[in-house]
């Protein structure tokens, strides 16, 4: 188990090193996220004020869209460099490859969310200081759920045709519970009458989802990638 985690960290560090040299993913995904928020705000701001609960929805949709782009791009990079085969041939457990890519993606999305959250709070007057730990937990576990499923499918689709459009087609329905949990939990915190127990309940659902789907992804990654 330690070996798996250590190898996963190696792979994640490799991704981080590649990323730190070009900063391509971070810059483009961050800019996309900001652009997303901007576009959505045109839809959801009326008479100068945001529609109620818009902040939660916009936040999570932006995370979903940015995450999808980042996923596609990460594995596209592997494909272009033909490093995916190298990864799979390397003397590491398949689980390490999965966990490594997952960790890299989580770090990237985490960095984006750190910028995104204050921005959404500012633009939509959302009270992020109301229950900061709960909010952070919701974001963390929600992003984990999304990334866990996303990493699996993005890896699977690397060699498929029409992979650019098939990734969202496949990913969004399956990660709907994450989006629901995330949005509802966040909205429960941001709402005019905050309902923290409800937010906590959604958090526990997200944790449950994560436990189930990370396990499933780990089980499925090896059989799917042996080709």
């Amino acid at each position, binding site marked *: 188990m330690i070996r798996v985690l250590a190898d996963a960290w190696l792979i994640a560090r490799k991704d981080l090193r590649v990323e730190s040299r070009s900063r391509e993913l971070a810059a483009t995904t961050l800019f996309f996220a900001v652009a997303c928020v901007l576009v959505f705000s045109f839809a959801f701001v009326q008479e100068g004020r945001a529609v109620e609960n818009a902040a939660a929805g916009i936040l999570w949709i932006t995370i979903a869209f940015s995450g999808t782009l980042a996923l596609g791009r990460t594995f596209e990079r592997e494909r272009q460099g033909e490093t995916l085969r190298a990864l799979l041939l390397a003397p590491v457990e398949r689980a390490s490859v999965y966990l490594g890519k997952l960790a890299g993606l989580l770090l990237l999305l985490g960095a984006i969310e750190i910028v995104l959250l204050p921005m959404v709070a500012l633009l939509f007057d959302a009270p992020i200081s109301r229950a900061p730990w709960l909010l952070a937990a919701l974001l963390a576990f929600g992003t984990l759920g999304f990334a866990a499923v996303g990493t699996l499918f993005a890896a699977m689709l690397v060699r498929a045709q029409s992979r650019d459009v098939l990734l969202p087609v496949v990913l969004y329905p399956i990660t709907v519970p994450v989006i629901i949990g995330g949005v509802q939990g966040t909205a429960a915190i941001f709402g005019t009458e905050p309902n923290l*127990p409800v937010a906590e*309940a959604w958090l526990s659902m997200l*944790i449950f989802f994560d436990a189930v789907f990370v396990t499933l992804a780990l089980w499925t990654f090896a059989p799917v990638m042996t080709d």
Partner: protein
Amino acid sequence: MIRALRSHARAALVAILLSVGVGTAVPVMAQQTLPSTTAAQDGFVPVSPEDMGQEHLPATPLVFAAYATVWVALLLYVLTLWRRLGRVERELADVSAKLEARRR
């Protein structure tokens, strides 16, 4: 042995996460107040036709549309299935005949 340990560790992790999740969810769900029920949420209550009052939106066309949808959808599917199956089996017969001819 390592593999067994790994799967045990994984199983333990899942179990812990699950129990945390359930442990948090159960008391919260118990506390939650349910919305006031509308339109027969908890159970259907039967009534005889004489007791029914006036209806503002005629239900009959909706009911017909629903039943028609079911019939049409199922029939269409069965038809397309039949056609696809027929086509494939015909092709299969053709190709098998060619193979047979070649073998002779």
